[in-house]
């Protein structure tokens, strides 16, 4: 052992690392291209059939196509397709950061009860007309969903901080929250009028048909708000995966970053769910796909998680329109059916790196 350096060997380490970084950037680029393709197909696909060229023209130069195509593309299909991309991105990002700070591969908005809490909040508005946040009757459903999601997130966060609480305890707590909020939801459904019941059931299935431009902008704003905050802590969040002691020894303020991250996660998970309903799976699987492909350096893990979630939901949106001609199935029903085969194939081909 000596401090003297054999430069040839050192060059090898540097060179290999640079190559690794490039490969990861290519993976992200690949995802971006696949997402662009999926997005275009999502817009081109629907009960009214238009040629791909017409659709691309309608997207790039709306003035060059007929009014009918323009209305179908921009007012009907575009909001749904965009909402799929943004919701997938937001839920996957939320799942990625939950898994990171809770050091738990099972963490996601769906598995830890945040989606169930949001559903209960929405049902409170739909069935009982109760607004958790006063004076906000216009956005009663999404705001209720958000408030309950925030509550669930904070419960998980503060209990996970208590002494002696293990990773398993947090998962059990999440499962308990899922059951609790589902029971409360069932209670409301039992009391609900037929009309209110129908809207609650539709809401809990998760459907992109509820997408509007306003909802898209709000969800996008939340995503754009969260991204720089996570990016700023990229090294620190990666260090937290090495264990709390190790991260602290690197100078990371673990408690502060955990709390900040959980609050942002609540926002990221609750806002899309409050607009389009419960969509499971993507928040769990998106990050796993990213981790298997690029590892957990957040500089690569974050963008890949976002891309993987967006692609998964966009592809699901295409499938949900393709099963029966003229019928668009609620996307929440289809996500797992589309994602599971892909997820299994990745796990089986890459067992050693899967957490």
């Amino acid at each position: 052992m000596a401090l003297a350096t054999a430069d040839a060997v050192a060059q090898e380490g540097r060179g290999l690392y640079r190559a690794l970084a490039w490969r990861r950037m290519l993976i992200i680029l690949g995802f971006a291209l696949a997402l662009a393709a999926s997005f275009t197909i999502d817009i081109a696909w629907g009960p009214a059939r238009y040629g791909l060229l017409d659709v691309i023209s309608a997207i790039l130069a709306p003035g060059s196509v007929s009014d009918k195509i323009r209305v179908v593309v921009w007012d009907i299909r575009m909001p749904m397709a965009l909402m799929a991309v943004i919701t997938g991105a937001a839920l996957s990002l939320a799942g990625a950061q939950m898994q990171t700070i809770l050091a738990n591969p099972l963490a996601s908005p769906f598995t830890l009860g945040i989606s169930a809490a949001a559903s209960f909040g929405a049902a409170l508005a739909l069935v009982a007309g109760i607004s958790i946040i006063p004076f906000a009757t216009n956005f009663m459903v999404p705001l209720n969903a958000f408030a309950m999601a925030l509550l669930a997130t904070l419960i998980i966060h503060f209990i996970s901080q208590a002494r002696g609480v293990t990773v398993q305890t947090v998962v059990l707590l999440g499962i308990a929250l899922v059951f609790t909020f589902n029971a409360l939801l069932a209670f409301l459904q039992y009391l609900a009028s037929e009309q209110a019941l129908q809207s609650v059931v539709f809401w809990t299935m998760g459907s992109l048909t509820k997408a509007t431009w306003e909802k898209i902008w709000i969800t996008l704003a939340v995503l754009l708000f969260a991204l720089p905050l996570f990016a700023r802590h990229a090294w620190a969040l990666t260090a937290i995966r090495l264990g709390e002691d190790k991260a602290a020894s690197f100078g990371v303020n673990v408690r502060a970053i955990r709390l900040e991250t959980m609050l942002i996660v609540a926002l990221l998970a609750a806002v899309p769910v409050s607009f389009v309903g419960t969509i499971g799976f993507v928040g769990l699987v998106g990050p796993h796909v990213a981790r298997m492909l690029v590892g957990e350096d957040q500089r690569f893990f974050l963008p890949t998680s976002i891309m993987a979630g967006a692609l998964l939901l966009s592809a699901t949106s295409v499938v949900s329109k393709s099963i029966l001609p003229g019928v668009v199935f609620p996307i929440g029903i289809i996500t797992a059916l589309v994602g599971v085969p892909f997820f299994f194939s990745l796990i089986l081909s890459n067992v050693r790196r899967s957490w």
Partner: protein
Amino acid sequence: MVTIALEDIGAYYGRRLTVSGITTPIFSAGEIVAVIGPNAAGKSTLFKRMAGLLHGPGTVRVEGSGKGKRAISYMPQDTSANAVLTVYESILLARKQGSGWSVGEDDLRLIDQVMRAIDITDIAFRNLGELSGGQRQLVGIAQTLVREPDILLMDEPTSALDLHRQMEVLAFMREVARERRIIVFIAIHDLNQAMRFADKALVIERGQLRGAGPTGEVINRRLLHDVYQIDARIEPCSRGHLQIIVDSVASRTAAAPS
């Protein structure tokens, strides 16, 4: 020249003051300080307090550094976290904390240099989860070194290493301390290794300081009897290295607190 001295240091673990009243002589650049004591004596707690990770009374007086909070770097005992990161990335991570996303050629050159120095270039692109306990300790040492601290606190860095690796790592740390003019504190259970490699020793028992000074003076028969409940001789071998020869082990009725 960098120096450090502890002045009436205590540390809270939760609400309990588990370490208290520790005042040491001044330790200077280039020195290796062995921190010894029974299990659960408070060695890790003292290190965490020195690194600013735990609160408590007293002052850690560092002079001649100019690196502020980054002057002291703590290497915790190994955690078996299995993040999906390569060894190289995990060392880069330690280097880049608190700085921007871009990775400069200087950063990578330093990492290569450190990895080569502790002979772990062959595992550079293995995942952390695939490493043995000993390999993880070596990676931990690399993570600490690339932060270029003036004072290094290593918590049992050789506990999972085979004898050959132990000798290599301790000799390397002594070389690093001398060449880079840094102070290296090593919590260690092997007192023979402590006598061989450390210039000074700190003895902690039940959260209190039991001795501090040159290793040869601090580690003596009386200490072994009082702190470790062992009757032993300390004699030079044929090549002059001091060795502990254990004669008998007394029962530990007044054992250290858990």
